[in-house]
Structures are given as structure tokens and as C-alpha cells.
């Protein structure tokens, strides 16, 4: 269980540095990292804070991990507490997934991880190792859009657009599993996402229209 040792070492390292004051969120992230990364496996390189860069990013340790995002492999230095959303947005500038609540209440940061929807603000970067991560950016190629995106445009299923990438991903996950949903199933499918502008009726329309297009081979 070398990986587990690595991980425990990382935890100890953080603690021995005195660390920051424990916050609810920091605690949650730390605890979760300890519990979950052990099971994940890929090698984690601990940076012992000797390098200038490591000192710059934290008094405690960081680890270099590899993440597979939208079919590309990325190497990033993260702390145990670093979330997937932070890696996507702040490290890699893949900013489709948004931060709204930063605690798994609103769905704006939704991405797919091994074909499962996850809130990237509640997913530790370390736990995303070895997974296939798909963000909204993966759905289009230049102006060549996914039928869901085309339907969102056509039905005006967006206003300010801040929630839109999360809704697009939620609809994608729904239609991948259920290509012919009812209106009620669409509502349930996007019920983890919040829109303050109130575009829901048109998100529903867009999802149903996209489902039809996709069933027709579009």
C-alpha cells in the first residue's frame, strides 16, 4: 500500500507545518482526500516544499498529479484540498464550469467524470486521477456544436449564461442514459442545477428538442 503511505505522508506533512486554521470546508476537503485518494491509486509525487514554487503555493505540501480532461492529459501541482473546479478554472483556464455556491448546491460547476455527473467544486482534484473528465468544452469543435448546444441557442435556453454550461452537461448526462425523456424526466434530470434568470421552461424545451434531433441521428 505504497500509495496509501504516500497519501498519509502528505496529510502528515500538511499537519506538521501547522497548517491553516481549520475551516469547515478545509476540514471536509482534507478528510475526504484522506479517505478517498487511498483507493484511487496512481502515483502521487509529493513536493516537499523545498522548491520555490511549492513554497509559493503553500506552506504545506503539494503533489503533482495527472488528470485526463477532454481527452488531454494535464499535469498539475495540487494540494490535498484542491478541488477539481479549481484545477479546471484557475490552473488550466478551462472555465466553462462555473463557481456559484462552491458547495454542491447549484450545479453550475457540473462536469462528467467517467460518464457520471459530478459537481467539480465538491470533487477533489486528487480523486479525479485516472478518470475521464469531460467539461462543456468537450462538446463542441469550433462552431460545430452538439445538438444540445444548438437546441439551447434555438430555444433561448440561456440568459446571463452563467448556469448554462452546467445545464448543458446535465442534459447531456440525461440524454446519454435516456434518449427519449418525458418532460418530467427532463425536470428531474436538471433538478441539481439552479438558474436565477429563470430559463428553466426553455431548458426543458431545448432538452426535449435535442433528444428528438439526436434520436433522428442529428
Amino acid at each position, binding site marked *: 500500500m505504497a500509495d496509501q503511505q504516500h497519501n498519509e505522508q502528505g496529510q502528515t506533512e500538511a499537519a506538521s507545518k501547522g497548517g491553516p486554521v481549520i475551516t469547515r470546508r478545509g476540514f471536509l476537503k482534507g478528510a475526504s482526500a484522506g479517505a478517498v485518494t487511498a483507493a484511487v491509486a496512481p502515483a502521487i509525487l509529493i513536493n516537499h516544499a523545498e522548491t520555490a514554487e511549492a513554497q509559493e503555493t503553500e506552506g504545506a505540501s503539494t503533489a503533482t498529479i495527472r488528470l485526463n480532461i477532454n481527452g488531454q492529459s494535464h499535469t498539475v501541482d495540487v494540494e490535498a484540498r484542491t478541488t477539481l473546479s479549481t484545477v479546471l478554472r484557475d490552473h488550466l483556464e478551462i472555465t*466553462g464550469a462555473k463557481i456559484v455556491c462552491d458547495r454542491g448546491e447549484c450545479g453550475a460547476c457540473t462536469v462528467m467524470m467517467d460518464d457520471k455527473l459530478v459537481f467539480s467544486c465538491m470533487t477533489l482534484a486528487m480523486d479525479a486521477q485516472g478518470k475521464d473528465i469531460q467539461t462543456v468544452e468537450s462538446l463542441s469543435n469550433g462552431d460545430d456544436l452538439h445538438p444540445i448546444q444548438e437546441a439551447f441557442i434555438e430555444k433561448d435556453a440561456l*440568459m446571463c449564461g452563467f448556469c448554462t454550461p452546467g445545464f448543458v452537461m446535465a442534459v447531456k448526462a440525461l440524454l446519454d442514459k435516456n434518449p427519449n425523456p418525458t418532460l418530467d424526466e427532463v425536470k428531474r434530470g436538471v433538478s441539481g442545477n439552479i438558474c436565477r434568470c429563470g430559463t428553466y421552461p426553455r431548458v426543458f424545451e431545448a432538452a426535449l428538442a435535442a433528444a428528438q434531433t439526436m434520436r433522428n441521428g442529428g
Partner: protein
Amino acid sequence: MQQKMKKVTIEIEENGVPKQIEIEVPDTGEGSWGDVSAMQYVNQRRTRVDAMAKVTGRAKFTYDIKLPGMLYGRILRTAHPRVRVKRIDAAKAAALAGVKAVLLPNDAPNIFTREGRYAGQEVAAVAAVTMDIAEDAIQLIEVEYDILPFVVDEAAARDPSAVRVHDDRGNVTEPQVREQGDVTVGFEAADVTVEASYRTQVHTHSPLETHGSIAQWEGDQLTVWASTQSIFGFRDELAGYFEMPETKVRVITEHMGGGFGAKLGGAKREGVICALLARKTGVPVKLMLNRKEEHLTTGNRPSSIQNVKLGATNDGKLVAYERYNYGTPGINGSAGVPGAPYLYDVPNWKIEQVSIYTNGGPAAALRAPGHPQLAFSMESAMDELADKLNIDPLDMRQMNDSHEVRRKMVDMGAEKIGWKSRRRLKPDTGPERIKRGMGMGSCRWGGGGGRTKAYCIINPDGSVEVRCGTQDIGTGTRTLIHMIAGEELGLNPLDINVRIGDTSFPYSGGSGGSTTCASVSPAIKSTTLIAKMTLFEAVAPKFGVEASALEAKDGKVFVRNDPSKSMTWQQATAQLQDGPIEINGKWVPGYSDSGVPGTQFAEVEVDTETGVVKVLKVVAVHNSGLVINPLTWESQINGGVLMGVGYALYENRIMDPATGYMVNANLEDYRLVGAMEVPEIEILSYDEPERGTIGIGEPPIIPTAAAIANAIYNACGARVRALPMTPDKVLAALAETREG
């Protein structure tokens, strides 16, 4: 048909030299859209021009921008509702690896507080290399407070012996009293009166993109990317704070994740702190608030307690209205609602209102300030009175409403929802658990436009750019500029380059109060019209006609009465010997108006065992004069109705009276409408294109809560007089009905 023309003097630039010239433009009164039915783009359903960027994740919002070397800012806030800062020690924070700057109260005495009056005021700030480190750093700042007595409940704060929120004044503001006729005589003439107290909650804006900005200094030039509803307001506050010319500050808002009123005004404290941190560190700093801060400090719709008395004669004519209302705007602002009876003609009335300061975050304009509160009390009281008189509440409204257009709109909505055919006449008090009912409520709003300038350039190669310093806050402003310019110039709207959201463009006011469409549209219409006529002046000699005989459509310029005489747009613009046409135009009267009525009908289902209310359907009838883009107009109405459903049933800022904290400053316990709560929404437009364009942001949130409250009563007899109408209140009202 010879079009009537008029001469106008415009300023153009020729070889870099400003020069005044006189041109002829169509004389259609002050300005008129002309025959809307003949238009190709205006009044047509057009998808958003920025939709592609938003559905692909490519749109960069302020929150998404990362500049080279950028730091992250965080603010330390007071942890108690009423404090005096005794000692503050940031040594540990400053020593933390990755922390680049710490700002303490002495660094910006007007921004940071030493006398905190609500939990969440700014005490200190840091900038660090990552967001997590910035968060760690503010946790390491040691603050010693004198913790002082406070009051967060508006009823408790009214008591003369209550703790004072401000040292120099009482908690209750000077009463605002307005009256007309003689209310005592009025009530003597009334055959029937209702007297009731209606309450509405504190409502937070909760835009999904929180407040925040990125500030970058280059010498004495400050550039800021901001999530704001008013780039110029933001700029002016920064210029004022730093005592620098407005020309040295540039604010950019390319895409904006919602505001609903909270992002009007200026840079606010967080914007100034961000610029201070950037100045101190010499590198760009990004400072976005988190969700908790957004709830605590960025504004809210004040609460209201409205004690209402309404009297009518037996035939349903209103004769007297009296209201005393108060509410809390927190530490600052006004909890006032419109100072007249809402919507209906009452000969005798008297209104007295006060605001009550409490130790809570300050109020800010929230979508139709004051109106949803008043619509809830007025329209509930109208129904209660109609019920006593045994008159259909719709008929009662119609007989007391002198607004002819609103009466027609009420008829439209009633027919659509089946008011006369499907509505139960009396609440269902039978044994079935699930009850259905219907209710209605109406509204009015002002809106109107002005204060907007625009720029249009037509280049010799035919390319056209339009610039306007407005901002698209999610309402579709960018799209309507494309549409209007395309219509005027006879070009595909997508072929016009439109640039907005930058204070280096011509001035436009803040996007609030349903004024953006009515401000921006006339400016674009007028500016592109003058640009077009200037082009016509240049090419008319080629056709041997007057400029006024020309028309532009489908990418061609041609003689109106002889379309065979024609050239392509590019052939026309190639005639520009002196370089491009550049026009600086502005808002002119005639293309917009203000003042709109509206009405909504709701159908609900009430579970009489659990008290849960489900809104099944809302019919919303609104009026924006000339609707520029019906597709995005409808989206705005969906949004207003759904925010209204949230206000009616779910949203509520809860302050703990014992600790003075907001206990639900998140999006789990502060409940916004989610997908499962969305009713069917049917939208009807009452068009009055001859009035020009009028905004639609505010009206659709106003009457929704009232319509739902009246529908709940109609369903089961429970009269709920407090928002949000949560299951406990519905069950309590039901119990009252059964006892009474």
C-alpha cells in the same frame, strides 16, 4: 410616396478634423419606428448573438478571467452584528507563504470598518497567490472585538427602548405621509371594509455570478474587469476614490452573470478593495465574493409589514384606503413602497410609511423595488373585499381600474386561463386532500429611457461597427443592437460588429429599472439612421437623385421608387472618398416610452395535509409597446414569473434574533425556484408598437406572489397574508378557516 424629410446638423470627422454638416433624415415626428410589420429583424424572434459563446463555455465572464501574475483577493468580515474593533493583528497572515498584501482599516479608513453594524462588514483584506491561501490568510488575522448589543428583528427595533443601530438617530425614520380626500369620510361611506396585516420577507438578489472584479494598474492607468450592471458607475466611483480623472479608469464587462439590481451603482467596497490590493502589490488582483458574502452584504429587497384597511360600497366601488407600513432595509436605505393605492382608483386614502433600521446588510434595488410588496397587499385585500361583497374579484378590479389597456389585458388573460369557465366560485372546503384554485394580480411599472450615446462607423470596405457603453446583463441587449442596426442599414444583423461593455465606448447608464432597452434602442436607431443618411448623401449623385430618395435593404442601396437603380452595400461604401463615415449619436425621444400595465393569473394545487403549494400554471400578460425581440422578451417574462414564484413560496432571508446572523446564507437553505417547481407559463403580449419600445425586466415579478396567494385562497379558503407562503403558514391559515 414622397417621404417627408427634415434637416439635422451632425458632427462628423473629415481627415481627422471635426466638422458640422447638415443632412436630411426622414421626418417622422420626434422619431418613429414607422411600419413595424414591414421590418425584417426588429420585432422578429432572433436568437442571442452571444449564445454560441455561452453554450460552449467560451464566454469569459469576470469570474473566468485570469491575467498573467494575477493574485486572488479575499475580505475579512465582521463576525458579529454589532462590534467595535479593539485590536487587529495580521502578522501571521502576512507571514504565510503566498500572501502578497494585507490591507487593514488604517489603509483605507472609508472602506474598512471599525464600528461594525451588521455581521459581514469589511475589516481587512489580503491578496495571495491562490484563492485557498487567501482564505487561509484571512483566517489567520486576529481581531479582538468589543461585542455590542444589536437588534435584527424589525418589530423589536421599533420599540423606543430598542438598541440603536446608528448612534446619531433612532431606528425609526421620519414617517412619510401622503393623503388624498378624507379617509374618515371615505370609510363612513363604505358598506364593507377589510382590515388586515400583510407581511413580506427580506429577499436577496442571488445572482449566480457573485460581485467582483479584476483590477490592473499600468502606471496611473487603472483597468478593471467587473461584474456590474453599470460600467460607468463603477468607473466613476473608482475615479472618485482614487482622486484620478475618469479618463484614467477603464471598466470592461463583456459577459455578466446576473445582477437583478444588486450590481447597480458603483464599484462598492469590494471593487475599491480589489483596486487597492492591485495597487499595493503592483500586479493584477481578482476579488470575487463568495456565496455567503453575496447574501450578507450586496443588498436585498427590504421586508414589509403593511397594515391595510380597504373599504367599498355594496356595488364594489372602492371608497377608502388606509395603510401604515414599515419594514427593514438593514442598516441603510429605505423600505418604502409606492406612496399611493396600487392600481385602483380610490377617492379617499391615507398612507404612512417608515423604515426601521436593524443590524442587517443594507438594502439595494431588487427587480421592481417596492412593487411586489405593495402588489401583494393590495391585490390580496382586493380579493378579500370582493369575497365579502360576493363579487368576482376580476369584476371588482375592472370596475375600479381606470387604465383601459390594463382592463383589456385582464380580459385577455382571463380568457386564456379560463377564469369564467373553470374557476371555482367558492373555495373547496370538502374532504378531498388536494385542492385546486385560481387567482390573479396586476401591476404597473415606469421604465423609459435616455442617457445613452452611441457610435457607428461605416468603412469604405462596407464593414460596420456600432459601439455603445451599455452592458448586457443577460437580457439580450447586445442582440438587440445587432437587430436595430441591421434593420436600419439593411444588413444582416450578424454582419455588424457590435461592441459594448467598455467605458471607452460612448456613455450609457446603468442597466436597471427596465430602462436599458428604451435607452439603448433609440440611440442605436438614431445613430445608424444618421450614418445611413450620410452614406446616402455620398452616393446620391451616382443615382442622380436626392439622398432622401434612397433606401437600404438586403445589402443593397437603391432608389425607393425605382429599385432597378441599385448598387450593393459595398459598391456604395466604396464611394466614400474621404474615409469612413463616423457618427456619434445619442438617444432621442420618440422611439421609446415609459409606463406599462400588466397582469398575471395563477392556477395552484394545495395539499391540505402537508400545506405544500404547487403552482401549476401562470398566464402572464405584459406590454412593452414595441417588442424588439419577442424571443428574449418572453425569456425575461419567464424569469420574472419564476422569481415571483420563489418570492411567493420559498425565498426568505432568515436572521437569528439571538446571534444576529443570517442562518441561510447559501443556496440550499435560501431556496430559489428549481426545475421541479416550474409551472407552465403562458405569455401574452399586448402590443402597442406606436409607443416605441419599453423595458420588461421589472413588470413580470410584480404580481406573481399576489396571484398565487389569491389562488391558494380560491383553492382551499386559506388566506395566507405573509410571504413566503410556506407549508406551515398554509396549514395555519387552513386551521383558522376551519375554526372560523
